[in-house]
């Protein structure tokens, strides 16, 4: 029993990381029909930025976080939107998908070539001292990840539902043409969404760096899990991304322990396919219109 609790906590902790990555992904799809295949790399780049600011330049932690978020927002938020998305959106879903695939390869291999192909160490943000609760051993790192993700997601949810900007985003997500008629500057809103996504992935990077270690290819599996999470939970609801992330994390961990480690990557996939066939809008999702 103790093992089960141990595994579930680990699953929830890693699931929180998936959720944080998945949320921005969902936001982008909602407001701009962008399937961002480079979402994983949107986390890796800020992770490297954190190494630069926190480890190499030795900024104090908060300053490093701020610097990372700013860099991420500028490059991956405004930069990507203005240079790539604005033009490609008009051409339909596929060109943008291809371009984001190209972007993910570009970021990945540039980091490998110009920085390092090796994994860089990153200091733990939360303490790793083991805390014993019966047979279960946790550390502040697991708890910290979960709490941090909860706070960020909660804040985001408030933003979306309570602020004017947030509600404008919702309007655009539901019906872009109508939102435009109502006077919402859709283009500007999309830019803000991209910036928000970049900020979210930067925050996710802070959680991920100590656990995954900072290497150019950690975005690959992370991005994939984020997709699963977004689709399983509900591609058009933030809480869907949260549910999806947690579900993927927990299922992965438990099934690797109790069923088979050889097929570790398959279990979340099976759930994904089942969801896609039975309820494609996701468990907490809402049916999409024929946009």
């Amino acid at each position, binding site marked *: 029993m103790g093992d089960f609790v141990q595994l579930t906590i680990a699953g929830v902790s890693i699931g929180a990381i998936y959720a944080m990555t998945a949320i921005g992904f969902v936001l982008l799809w909602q407001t701009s029909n962008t399937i961002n295949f480079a979402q994983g790399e949107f986390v890796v780049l800020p992770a490297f930025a954190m190494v630069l600011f926190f480890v190499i330049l030795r900024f104090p932690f908060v300053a490093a976080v701020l610097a990372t978020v700013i860099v991420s927002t500028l490059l991956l938020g405004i930069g990507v939107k203005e240079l790539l998305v604005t033009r490609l959106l008009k051409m339909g879903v596929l060109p943008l998908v291809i371009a984001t695939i190209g972007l993910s390869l570009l970021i990945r291999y540039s980091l490998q070539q110009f920085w390092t192909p*090796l*994994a860089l160490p990153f200091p733990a943000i939360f303490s790793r001292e083991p805390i014993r609760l019966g047979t279960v051993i946790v550390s502040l790192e697991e708890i910290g990840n979960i709490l941090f993700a909860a706070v960020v997601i909660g804040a985001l949810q408030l933003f979306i539902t309570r602020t004017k900007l947030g509600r404008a985003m919702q309007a655009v997500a539901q019906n872009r043409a109508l939102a435009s008629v109502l006077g919402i500057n859709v283009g500007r809103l999309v830019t803000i969404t991209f910036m928000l996504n970049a900020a979210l992935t930067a925050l996710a990077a802070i959680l991920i760096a100590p656990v995954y270690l900072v290497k150019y290819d950690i975005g690959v599996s992370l991005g994939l899990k984020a997709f699963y999470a977004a689709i399983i939970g509900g591609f058009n609801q933030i809480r869907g991304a949260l549910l999806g992330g947690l579900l993927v994390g927990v299922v992965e961990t438990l099934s690797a322990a109790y069923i088979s480690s*050889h097929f570790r990557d398959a279990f979340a996939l099976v759930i994904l396919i089942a969801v896609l066939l039975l309820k494609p809008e996701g468990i907490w999702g809402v049916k999409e219109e024929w946009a």
Partner: protein
Amino acid sequence: MRSARPKLSLLAALLVLAAVSPASPQGVTKLPIVAEITGGGASVGAMWRDAVNLAVEDINKKGGVLGMKLETSVQDTQTDPPTSVAVMRRVLNDKPFAVFGTVYSSSTVANMDIAKQAGVPQFTGSESIIITQKGNDNIFLTSFTQDTGMAKMVRWLLDDLKAEKIALVWVNNAFGKGGHDMFVHFLKERGKAPVVDISTEVQQADFTPELTKVRASGATHVMVYNHEEENARFMIQLRKMALTVSPVGETTLCAQTTLTPGGAAVDGSRCHVGLTAGAPVPLMVDMNRRFQEKYNRVPDHNAFKGYIGVHMLKAAVQRVGSWDQAKVKACLHNNLFTTNEEAGLLMDLYVNEKGSLDRPSFIVEVKDGKSVVVKTVGMLGGPYNVRPCK
């Protein structure tokens, strides 16, 4: 008399020329490097390439081999087997004497038949048993294959450490599977089996399933056989869960590329390694120093393999006495090479009939983020003889 003068002056001119000009232009032997410079194996390929270049530089400074200078070039396989085949074919077009690479076993298995067809000896950094199982007399490893390595490992684990219950955590790819199969095989020979046998994935981030299973099994030792980053993550999480099991490994657990990201969590691990920068072998220490001077980083086992590979070729060519591919290949089978005849080999080595090595190795313990050699393990077989090759 008049007709003799032009001949005399010509002779005089020739004599002057011979005295003044440098020694007759030296021939050049081509030794291309085919390695993983981009893709998943970038760090590995880079180490191999840098060390081969260092070795060639060292050799050329001392005058080359049998009057020939060595020349390398670098070709990237992208860590992709079909690409490595294309690259190998391209490289063979230039009729090199020998090829250095690839390091990744899945690429080597794909491209080694081509080198064999061309009769160009191939020195590889691969370690997987699938390479020697194919009966290719054209391939030469620069380390032991997993059967020798694991044989030594198991012997040390059971005889020295008196390990009772051993858990096995291994990465599910060609590398990990080869090691897993050999480890289990040699344990079985001694009437034992792992109490836990659980596989992991490349790029895996969370190891709680593995760690809980290891803990539940009551294992005294855990054999950690993943790639370097995964080992680092595994060890960090092992310490977080305050497991009391003793971590042991073969090469990868105690490699520098595990120690750097893993930090203090890896301290206390003990490994059997074939090659390490911390080896108390003067020749290795010296190579380590020169590598760091030139490249500003510590060589890992892939670097040592590359360096030694070039010198294996040199030793064989010297022993044969000529640049003859067939004779050199024959010389590199069932033969002992010592550092007395060729210091660049760094350690005595024996090449067996399949082209893989037997060589002394080391037991290291990780202390304060560094691999410290605590014991030297002799060759597995022997005594071996030096066989002449002329």
